[in-house]
Every structure is written in C-alpha cells, then in structure tokens.
C-alpha cells in the first residue's frame, strides 16, 4: 500500500468520470430533479426542521447512487487487471477518496441549489460547514464499503440501500442535530463534543472498512 498507487488510482477515477459524462451527469440530474420537486412541493415557506430533513435525505440518496455507480461502472476484466497492478488496500483507499471528494462537491452543489430555490435558514455558517464535511465524509466511507460488499453479493442497488441505511442512521442523527443547532445560531465551540464524536465515528468507519476490505476481495 503506497501513496503513489493511491494517487494514480484516484487520478484515474477522476479522469474516467470526466471522460464518460453519463454517470456523473445522471447523478447531477437526479440531484436537481429531487431538489426541484421539493421546491415545487414547498413553494416559498418551509419550516427549518423540514429544510433540515429534506437536505439530509437528498444527500443520503445521492450518496447511495453515486457510490454504487463508481463501483459498477468498470467491468470484471478491468478490476482483475487492477488487482495485478496494485495492492488491495490501495484500490479501496483510492475509491474511498474518490467517493468522498465527489460527494463533498455534490453536497456543495446541493446546498447552493437549496439556497437558490428555497431560503437559507442557517445562521451559523461555520458550524454548518463542519457538519457538512463530517457528514458527507462518514456517509461516503460507509456507503463505499457497503457497496463493495453488495457488489460481491449480487450487484444490485437495493442491496446497498438495505444494508447501509440502518448503519448510517447514527451519523445522520448527529448531522441533523448539529444542523438544527446551526439553524438556532449556537456558537461552534459549545458543540465541540458532538463534532469530536462525529470525527471519531468517521475514523471508526474508515478504519473498519480499510481493515475488512482484504477479506472481501480475495477470491
């Protein structure tokens, strides 16, 4: 497992996603259509709790779609070829980094679209930014690992959703609580306990994933 391999594999993933725009574009279309449907439902007035809930639901389902797409899009021959070239852990860590960066970019797109269409109830932007980073990193770590499991199982999107949604609920609960506090304009420093527990939860999920992936991928 070397940094060189991880870097080149991540760059390879980015180049592939820019070359064939179908997967990336389909996720962007999914995102915009869900936000537009929720805008049509709410029109102008929306309570902060509903804003909170819709925001995190859209992030969760976008994450499930994009993370499984990144595993499915290469066929079996390419995957076997990569296993000859690089260590198992490098492949998995590069997928983690790629999915996390993609999801962070998409979460910013979701947030900006939300501000554009529906109003912005967030008062404490700094706390919200930290929550967004912690939440999207944790969700993408978990969904990448679970989609690795479900690819080996039977290659279906519903299995990823079934397996990952119960496990992602503590993280989502934490993010919803922190976002509610950002809406209520509490200071960032007073929520340091929640922030640290969120960071530790992300570390736990990432470490478990990196440690358990070699057991999955040896045939």
């Amino acid at each position, binding site marked *: 497992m070397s940094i060189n391999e991880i870097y080149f594999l991540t760059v390879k993933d980015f180049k592939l996603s820019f070359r064939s725009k179908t997967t990336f574009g389909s996720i962007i279309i999914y995102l915009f259509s869900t936000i537009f449907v929720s805008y049509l439902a709410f029109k102008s007035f929306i309570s902060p709790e509903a804003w909170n809930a819709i925001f995190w639901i859209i992030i969760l389902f976008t994450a499930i779609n994009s993370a499984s797409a990144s595993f499915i899009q290469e066929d079996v021959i390419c995957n076997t070829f990569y296993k000859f070239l690089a260590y198992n852990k490098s492949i998995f860590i590069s997928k983690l980094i790629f999915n996390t960066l993609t999801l962070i970019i998409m979460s910013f797109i979701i947030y900006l679209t939300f501000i554009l269409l529906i109003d912005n109830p967030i008062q404490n932007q700094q706390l919200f930014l930290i929550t967004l980073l912690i939440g999207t990193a944790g969700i993408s770590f978990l969904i990448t*690992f679970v989609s690795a*499991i*479900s690819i*080996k*199982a*039977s290659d*279906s999107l519903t*299995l990823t959703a*079934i*397996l990952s949604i*119960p*496990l992602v*609920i*503590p993280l989502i*609960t934490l993010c919803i609580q922190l976002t509610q506090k950002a809406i209520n304009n509490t200071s960032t420093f007073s929520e340091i*306990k*929640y922030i640290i*527990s969120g960071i530790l*939860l992300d570390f*736990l999920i990432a470490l*478990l994933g990196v440690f*358990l992936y070699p*057991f*999955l991928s040896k045939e």
Partner: protein
Amino acid sequence: MTTIKTTYKILAIVLIAYCIIGSLYLDFPYLPVIGTSIRNIFSHVSMWFAMIAQLTISLLFSIRYLKFNKIKDDIIASKALSTGIYFGIAGVITGMAWAKYSWGDWWVNDPKLTGSAITLLSCFAYLILRNNINDEIKKARISAVYNILLFAMMIVLLFVLPRTGGASIHPGQSGNPVIFPSELNWKIRLVLYPSFIGWILLSIWLLELKIRLNILIRKINNLTCAN
C-alpha cells in the same frame, strides 16, 4: 461432556423458575413513576443481555471463520445472530409494555430506543444479505465481514450515543445502574443477577438446538461440514 451439557440446561430452567417466582412474590420498594412495574426489569433487561451475549458469540465465531475458514464457525455465527433477533424482539415488546404503563406511550423519541430499533434492522439486513448470495463460501465470508461492521455500529448505537445525547427518559444514562449496585435495592439484585445467567443459558440452549438441526438438515442434503 454430556454432564456439562445437561447441567447447564437444568441450571437454566432452575434459575428462570426462581426468577419468575421471585419477581412475582417478593416485595420491592414502590417508586413514584414506575410503581409496581419494576418487576418488568427482570424480563426486559435479561432479554437485552441475552441478545448482546448472542451477538457477541456471533461476532467471535465470525472472526474465527475469517481466520480459520471452517464452515461450522459460520453456521454458529448465523444461528447465534438469528437467536439474538428473537431475544431483541422480546426485549422491544417488554420495553413497549413497560413504556405504555410508566411513560404513557408505546414508543417515545429516545436515543436508546432508536438505537435498539436500528440494531434489529441491521440484523434483518444481515439475513437478507445471506439470502442473496448462493455460493456457500462467499456467503460465509461476506456475512462475516458484515457481522463485524454490525457489531461495531451496535456498540456505538446502544452504548455511546445514548450517553452523549444529554438528558434522556430511558434509565441508565449516567453510569450503569443495572450492573453497579449503587441504585438498585438488594432484593432486586438478588433476583436480577441469577435472571441474567438463566436467560443467557437458555439462549445458548436454543442456539445449540438450532445448530444441531441445521447440521442434520445439511447431512440430509449431502452438504458436508468438517469439524
């Protein structure tokens, strides 16, 4: 070996009979909100301890399967998890009955209740995952990996998150009043600790029966299971 096998079953029956009789006939102190429904503590908490014991057995045998690759470890792990599901559902039902009496509602928005529901949901997801894979060795390996993830999240959901969430209506937030005897009356502890042991032994008996049944079915279907 045979005497150990029969002794623990007799011990389980004796302890559970003692706890049922003791919970109904002894005098416990009367506290304002709970009242006489404190007697539910023997069944409710024992169910959860039995579920956690079964999930721990399942985790240990999953790790053992990943290390040594014997199919029997995988059989024990999956049967232990399904036995844990039975006791978890029993714990949820006894908890709901207790909640209706003392808090007024069947289900409240509380981190410990949410954590227990999510743990049961992930156990069901484990069974769905096992159902979707056809190859036996692949099934064992992938479900062992998911079992380790499930156990880690269970620890976070049931023991970490309720304590960080501030004040909660479910007892047991600060410290651990079930295990450390600072808040429980001595009469309750007299019946409670044997009740834990009795229900855990009963769950292990149920697990042994399920494993023996599964191995016999596999022999009928001509699937070998090397010890």
